[in-house]
């Protein structure tokens, strides 16, 4: 089969999961083509050809853009006509049809069995592309596209849902949210959770701290949905209790100033450090030297960082929300606490810290085992291959 994957940008080399997915599909005898919405330097990624969308320019560049589109369409006049005909049937005006044609011109000429969108927002303005290409249309659901974006853009996926042949969701919770956002229940779907290269995370030894200072960690973008201010509020309670700890947040993002100010207001300057973004190798070291991992998010699609933290043997305390409920098995591989309730998070930290070494070790073992059994890369790659091969089954 020929499978086209639509991505927002040309992927970076660190995207292990994507590399493995592409390789898995290739090894199963399929050919993979990547479509990127932004221009990137590489034309090949993991052995798959990368086709960038044609960048719009002004003046001479603008004309060059139109010329490029024209060249493509001359090669496949049938596709252009099919695309126009479908859009006309949907009631689009001629100028709208032409505008969408420009947006889709880099994809339309190819012969594919599947056109798969890496996340839902990528389907916008490309709702009828697969149909015009007589290809099946698939989509992967992610947290932001389903939990946040449609609140601002009501019914934004209305057209796309009608065209979809199969949906991949990273959690059951997210699939349920998509149903609330109008995804018809008749559309076939598959649950494939994210996966990690657990050997990479497990190979080094843990450096358990011997001191009575609890090492706490969160890894992720500094974004409001991560609920980091609630985490800080819990830590302010911990400090009041006279418990000694050090909290590290790995990641960068828009919330830097806001978090710095929260740290200042909670008087946690000596306990909390925002260390910025780190490479995967550096991040592993943070996991390995932390006792407790916190994920106080308001919502999550699934959360890779929590899988990584479990693999590294951190004791995870996460919000009882979205895909996190499927990521952590409560009281077995970690603990769930209500979101937005700093007191609950605080009490759980105290409780977990008071566990005996033996009890902690049992949880750690179970967490590692959980990741190895349920979130390993090889299985996920197989599931993905099957996703495309068995279009009509779950």
């Amino acid at each position, binding site marked *: 089969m020929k499978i086209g994957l639509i991505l927002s940008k040309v992927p970076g080399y660190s995207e292990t999961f994507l590399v493995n997915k592409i390789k898995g599909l290739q090894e199963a005898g399929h050919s993979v083509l990547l479509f990127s919405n932004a221009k990137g330097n590489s034309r090949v990624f993991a052995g798959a050809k990368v086709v960038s969308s044609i960048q719009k320019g002004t003046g001479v560049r603008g004309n060059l853009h139109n010329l490029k589109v024209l060249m493509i369409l001359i090669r496949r006049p049938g596709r252009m006509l099919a695309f126009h005909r479908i859009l006309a049937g949907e009631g689009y005006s001629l100028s709208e049809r032409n505008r969408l044609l420009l947006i889709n011109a880099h994809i339309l000429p190819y012969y594919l069995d599947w056109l798969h969108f890496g996340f839902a927002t990528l389907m916008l303005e490309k709702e009828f592309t697969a149909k015009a290409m007589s290809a099946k249309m698939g989509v992967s659901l992610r947290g932001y596209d389903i*939990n*946040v974006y449609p*609140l*601002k853009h009501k019914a934004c996926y209305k057209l796309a849902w009608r065209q979809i042949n199969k949906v991949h969701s990273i959690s059951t919770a997210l699939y349920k949210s998509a149903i609330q956002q109008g995804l018809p229940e008749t559309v076939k779907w598959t649950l494939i959770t994210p996966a990690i290269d657990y050997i990479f995370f497990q190979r080094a030894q843990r450096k358990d701290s011997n001191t009575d200072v609890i090492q706490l960690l969160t890894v992720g973008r500094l974004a*409001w*949905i991560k609920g980091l*201010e609630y985490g800080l*509020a819990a830590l302010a309670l911990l400090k009041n209790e006279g418990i000694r700890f050090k909290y590290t947040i790995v990641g960068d993002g828009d*919330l*830097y*100033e*806001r978090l*710095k*100010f*929260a740290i*200042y*207001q909670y008087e946690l300057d000596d306990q909390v450090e925002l260390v910025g973004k780190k490479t995967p190798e550096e991040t592993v070291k943070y996991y390995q030297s932390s006792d407790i991992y916190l994920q106080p998010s*308001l*919502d999550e699609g699934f959360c890779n960082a929590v899988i990584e933290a479990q693999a590294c043997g951190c004791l995870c305390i996460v919000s009882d929300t979205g895909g996190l409920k499927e990521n952590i098995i409560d009281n077995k591989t970690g603990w769930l606490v209500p979101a*937005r309730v700093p007191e609950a998070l605080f009490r759980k930290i105290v409780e977990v810290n008071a566990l005996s070494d033996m009890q902690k070790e049992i949880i750690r073992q179970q967490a590692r085992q959980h990741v190895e059994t349920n979130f390993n890369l090889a299985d996920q790659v197989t599931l993905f291959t099957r996703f495309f091969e068995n279009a009509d089954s779950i």
Partner: protein
Amino acid sequence: MIIAIFSGDIPSSAFIERLIHDLSNKDFQIYLFGKRKKKVNYNNNVKQIFFRQNRVIIVLALISELIKYLLGPFSVQKLKQLHCFARKEGNWAFYYQLLLVINNKPDVFHLQWIKEGHKWLILKDFNVKVAASFRGSHINYSPVADLALADKYRQTFPLYDGFHAVSQRIAQRAQEYNAPIENIKVIYTSVLNSEVTSPAISASDTKFRILSVGRSHWIKGYQYALESIADIVSDYKFVEYCIVGADPRDEELIYNVSNLGLQDFVKLIDTVPHHEMNNYYRSAKLLLLPSLDEGIANVVLEAMSQGLPVVCTDCGGMGEVIVNGENGFLVPIRDSKAITSAFRYFIEMEDKDRLWIAEQGRKTVLQKFSVERQIEEFKQFYTSFLK
């Protein structure tokens, strides 16, 4: 006495425009410097001097200002210094702006925002006193996250001739950055007397509307307000929460409304012209200010002047306005449960007690935040370092 006021743009933000308006009713000569955004009519004693934006015009204006300078009282040696300084701190346009200010010979150059203030300190060499206002993010949280800015503040704050702080609390904060206490004068903002009317508590409605006013920004602490509303509507279905000035497309805000199941209880209203605000104050039963920090929030003063009782976080200078339980309610910051308790208490209060609180609030504004007092204090402020 010529007072130059600089905030970047002409016209400036609403409260700075108000200050200009108030000052221009007294015997000051006011020069406004800044980029022209819109045509504004001021009193006769206000002169608008625009910083040009077009590059060609800047070159011509620079030549003309250089000629004026050479005909003026200052030496060529000083001009050289100015030139070097401008090249270091900015560009040709900034050089021209400095010359334009110097040639207009104001007695005081009053910066409304402190962040870039140090660039203008060189005016002191040209017999211009440099003053600055402490307000908002520039002093409250920017230097907390930006350590280079904090350093810049510590180095340059001792060099200013005077500072105006919008609250005692902000004046204290500024001292953390080496602002000498004797140079800081706290002058509260004012609410126009004509705006102060009798309490509006009687507005009868089946809804109990709680109002917040302010843009969508994390410093406003809306997530705590919404959590508290989610709590309160489970018991009091007639409560409605309205945020005026919030962006109805702000992702965090609409996510929180939806996540807390408040779609039927919360209204987000984009912008309302200032003259229509009184209608909102009058149709509400309570004003909530859930902010994490403020100078002194003007909306609180306005609401109080309209006889609208206020629940407000104990942030920034708000404790200088409100005495908890006497003329309003103060709650700790970042604490939705405390907001809920205040709501419950207020909803269960008898009408006459609510009226009493409203009346006390109105009196506070009349006494502490009058225009006359504000202008008198600004006059003292400017004359203090002109001596």
